């Protein structure tokens, strides 16, 4: 018997955008407030997991054609590479720096290298969480 989950699917289509927005917000606010790459990544991953549960895995994999193991690896690479990058500038490993820039639309903005590191963490979290969920779902 096919389960009728029209309502769930309809709600999900909207809720996913709310979750994704929250994830980006948490990610960016992490610089000075609670939040950051790990939490943002977890929330981002819940959006994907929700999609996988509500729609079937094949459909979503067609829409998001990533190998999530590679996403995790890319994230880990970014995180380590930012630490490694400080070697090129003759600074101690894992050093970070920041500066203020005048961007056309945002005005005076603080840009920090730690954001790249956090982006790496977020990608790694998304990749790992989705990989875990997908491998568990294969077993059942």
């Amino acid at each position, binding site marked *: 018997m096919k389960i009728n989950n029209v309502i769930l699917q309809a709600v999900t289509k909207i809720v996913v955008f709310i979750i994704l927005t929250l994830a980006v917000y948490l990610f960016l606010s992490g610089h000075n407030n609670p939040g950051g790459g790990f939490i943002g990544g977890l929330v981002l991953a819940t959006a994907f997991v929700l999609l996988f549960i509500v729609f079937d895995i094949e459909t979503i994999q067609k829409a998001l054609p990533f190998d999530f193991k*590679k996403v995790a690896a890319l994230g880990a690479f970014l995180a*380590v590479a930012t*630490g490694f990058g400080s070697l090129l500038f003759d600074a*101690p*490993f894992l050093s970070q720096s920041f500066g203020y820039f005048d961007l056309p639309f945002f005005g005076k903005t603080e840009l920090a290298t730690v954001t790249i590191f956090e982006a790496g963490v977020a990608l790694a979290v998304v990749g790992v969480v989705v990989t875990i969920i997908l491998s568990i779902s294969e077993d059942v």
Partner: protein
Amino acid sequence: MNNIIVLPMVIPVLIGIILIFLGPYTKAQRWISLGVMVANAGISIYILNRIQTEGILRLDFGGWTPPFGILFVADSFSMILVLTTSIVTSVCLIYSFFSIGKAHETMFFYSFVNFLVAGVNGSFLTGDLFNLYVCFEIMLLASYVLIALGGRKVQLKESIKYVAINVLSSWFFLVAIAYLYGTVGTLNMAHLSERIAEAGQTPLLTVISILFLTVFGLKSGLLLYFWLPGSYSAPPTAVAALFGALLTKVGIYAMFRVFTLLFYHETSITHTIIGVLAGLTLIGGSIGALAYKDIRQIVSYNVVIAVGFILVGLAVATPEAIEGSIYYLMHDMIVKALLFLLAGTMIYLTGTANIDYMSGLIRNYPLLGWMFFIVMMSLAGIPPLSGFIGKVLVGQGAADAGSYILLALAFISSIFVLYSLLRVFLSCFWGETIISVEDEVPLKKGMLVPCVLLTLVTIGLGLGAESLAPYVSDAANTLLNPDVYIDAVLND
């Protein structure tokens, strides 16, 4: 700037990640991993020589000075171990090229070997107790994957035990760290040492040190070795050799660091307990080594005996004994890897692990037989080989300190090592040849070459012990004089 001392950990991490993207290109993965290990060996030799002229090196991550930030500290002891790790891993990698199989290689085998080495090197280099925990976890996570990869029934059975025991001991580790932080309010090892020396090692701190002893005892197989023979005999040969050579040694290293740098004030309690545990380990390991007919079990129990032997040096804690332990650590990493590789090769050739069903192998594979003979001599401590110098120095230290029971146990255990391996040798290599020329499984050169390399290293280490002496005595000096370490970290 000492950024170079972070390289032995970061290069394997970075390369391990890159190898994930090279999934199907196994050839590239092989050569890149081997290149990493050779490069690591070169880097560690360079750092080791720099330490001799400039003293202990340290690197504050992100420029946060100690005791506020995390840092890596490279002294002779850690660099010697990093160097030996690189050599052993390179050789085990070469062995795995020819034995591990395509299925492993495409399932990120080389990535996880790199991560394992990163964790091991990180544990050796870190100067922060919590960072030590993190590096332990990196190493353990990689080892969980490596032990279960392949998915044979015995592997899954053993990996459940292995994971359970290690999760438990990691939890103990975390609790011990929390207690220590709650008591003295820092986790930087040099700073800890300073504060414990100032406040005196109170009974509370001694109890915490016993908790650390339990944790490292579980990791290194000091008395709490019940999980070890099973887990080390389950994975493929190359992985088992890596485990046998590296994993217990990290626990031993941590024990040396903690009980020479932090908790060295109440030696009558802590070091006596270590001595008793070491003695019991020697007895238990010797019984185990004789009790089994499965060659993998015999070899695994030999790992246990070595753990006991090395910690006799720590329990005695005279300069000679510590030097002896350091020599013996290097020797044991190399020779245990070789022993595991030889045992694995014998199983590959005969298709059985039971020594009763092997006979007369030396006629079929003479070189293999002679290498087994050399490794046996080396483990027993026969002079020109690498086990000798360590055994003599530990024995001398134990005699100087008047620990005659430990001395006797240590040397009787050597006889048991010799006997257990001699039994394997007599049963498997001597006697009537039961494999006819037609049935002979050809011995791959790729399996033989790594064994030959390690045999050369054990001979070289025995003959070249003199040239290593300055490094080893510097390492022992740092271990016995915590002020050297503290000065290098805090007062620069």
